[in-house]
């Protein structure tokens, strides 16, 4: 009973991640890749993503401190970051990345800084939510992870 409960809770949590626009279809793709060989595949990927992307974030922060802004460099780093983010289905983060790159293209320094802050906020928020989600998922067990939310 307890287990069912937490499973329902897990599903609801995931659903809210989608409803709030934090995640997109790609996340489900990852979940579907999860199998007996890699029961924690999604979590591993997300962990890897946050480990690797923190380097990019630092890099971006440093580059953003400089004046005038090196838009090319920012765009390149952000492109990479966007690639990673989209791979895990971090929908909101990705959207901010796109916005950021748009500002880079138009040379809009203020826009860049603003969207970067926004992006970081989403990035951190998603991290927290996913951590909670994975924690609950571990408690719940391997079942039902791959089911698509409505």
């Amino acid at each position: 009973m307890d287990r069912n409960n937490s499973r329902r809770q897990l599903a609801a949590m995931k659903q809210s991640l989608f409803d709030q626009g934090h995640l997109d279809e790609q996340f489900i793709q990852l979940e579907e890749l999860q199998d007996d060989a890699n029961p924690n595949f999604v979590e591993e990927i997300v962990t890897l993503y946050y480990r690797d992307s923190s380097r990019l974030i630092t890099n971006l922060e440093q580059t953003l401190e400089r004046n005038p802004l090196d838009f090319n460099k920012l765009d390149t780093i952000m492109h990479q970051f966007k690639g990673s983010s989209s791979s895990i289905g971090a929908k909101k983060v990705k959207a901010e990345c796109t916005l950021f790159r748009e500002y880079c293209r138009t040379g809009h320094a203020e826009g860049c800084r603003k969207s970067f802050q926004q992006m970081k906020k989403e990035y951190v928020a998603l991290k927290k939510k996913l951590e909670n989600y994975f924690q609950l998922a571990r408690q719940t067990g391997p079942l039902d992870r791959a089911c698509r939310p409505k």
Partner: protein
Amino acid sequence: MNLSNGKGSISPVISTMTMKSGETSDQFPAGLRVLVVDDDPTCLMILEKMLRTCLYEVTKCNRAETALSLLRENKNGFDIVISDVHMPDMDGFKLLEHIGLEMDLPVIMMSADDGKSVVLKGVTHGACDYLIKPVRIEALKNIWQHVVRKKKNEWTEQSGSADEADRHPKASDDADYSSSANEGTWRNSRKRRDEEEEADDRDDSSTLKKPRVVWSVELHQQFVAAVDQLGIDKAVPKKILELMNVPGLTRENVASHLQKYRLYLRRLSGVSQHQNNLNNSFLSPQEASFGTISSISGLDLQTLAAAGQLPAQSLATLQAAGLGRSTARPGLPMPLGDQRNLFSFENPRLRFGEGQQQHLSNNKPTNLLHGVPTNMEPKQLTNLHQSAQSLGNLNLRVAGSSSQGNPLLMQMAQSQPRGQMLSENTSPRVPRLPNPLGQPNVSNGFSDGLLGRNGITGGSRPPAYNPLAPSSSFLSFPMNQSTEMSATNFPLGSTPGISSIPTKASFHAEITSGMKGSAGFPSYDIFNELHHQKSRDWGMTNTSLTYDSSQHANPLHNNIDVSPSVLVHQGYFSTQQTGQSRDAAPLIGKSPFSLGESSEHGNLQNGGQHLNPLLVESSIRIKAERFPDASSQTNLFPEHYGQEDLMSALLKQQEGIGQAENEFDFDGYSLDNIPV
């Protein structure tokens, strides 16, 4: 079939299978060996997992350099490569270039960047697919098709020439080698030919026995630098080798690499052409047929492209005072695209595009008769728009028609009506000759275009050959007008040019006699005159070539003379091509003979029909080759291969013909452009 070996052996299995009939095993594509290259660990891990879920064998790699060395170490270890575009150590396109040059594997590019220009860049660099990140597993489930497509292309390429019994052993001998020979269709022909020429050396030496030279990035850059320094057309292996000055590197290594490099360049331009073609078809979406035969049309358009490029080239040549052509060329492939674009956009399709398409329809369906009226249209249009059309257009048109001439060889049965048209066309033009420059250009170019055709229609009976005098006077017009042409050109070329005339003339004569037998052509007197003028012109055109590399006049002429006969020959002996195309001289003797036999109209047509598939094929090849050749100039050819090679190239049947045609067409073009 060794399916039982499991995953690891799948790839050989594939090649065996495709060699045989293209059937697929139940397990395929399980075990497809994929190399994934991405600097982003997250993406890499996801991709790896996805690919494994697809049951592929995955090797992952986070650096392009590592990927390249992996590929080099294990040449046949992978079936397909998936690479990110943006990588710190090496641009994905660079990697793509290297893979294209060295292993010729299908490469899929991927990037979060979905900008059209980036995708386009991937495609033009030879990527077989471009995936937008995040990559979905659905897309990866399908990537095996690229492997099959490549192998299949190769297979069709081989079976396409299945008649050539003597080639088969070769093909199977170097299955290994040829398995790397799969290309997009449009460059198959070229590749094929290169293979042919290389085949002998490579078969028994470089591929199997000699240690393979690894063309590292550095080495390749040295090579590119040397080529750039020499100019792509002037770059012969020996000189490159001298410039590179790398110990241990042999001329053969360089030659082989140079060929690949040229292929690569060609592929780039070929692809961009393709895109242009696509644009074309977009322009007139209502022309469904265009879409359906897009591959062929693409090739045909390439011809045009080549033609379009010619003006620039010949101009450059002329300005460079005949011999010094070197400077203008390296950049040419690129301007090409522009010109083509200009052409396709400026020309209301009605005039040119449509005509072109109709040419296509001539080639493609076996219905020869149908082709006749359509062929005329562009010409008539020319008449109408003669004065209004820009020179560029004219050049293009002429080029189109002359290029058409070659494929038209098959259409001999119909060529007579066309001949009439021609005479109609030309007659108004002849009086116009004295007009200001613009007009003569038209006529001049046109007569050239006619050349190709007349060569086929060949109204010249031996007796009619006498009235050379009038024709030569006709000739003098264009000559005088083409002031830009350095005077030396003519003396140079005139001798070989003339010498080539007799051969050709006799050839035509023989053909035409056959033709006449089949269908009484009333107005062939005029025609004959025209033809003479034309054959005269032909000689002239040869000159334009010869000033380029006068010492090659002979090989060139050989080519020119031979090629039509070979074509004809093929037309009538479609089943026996290879063996007979062995020797050009006997061929000449034979082809008229066969023509005589098939003097009956129906027979002719039958021959033509048989031919058509073949012809289409050869014409395609011609076109595919023409573009690159034109861009890198003709002298590449003679310089590179020399006369013996030429002959051997001829031996190689269609490829040889393609080459010869190429030269032959080219001549026509350059004359066209002279007055410009």
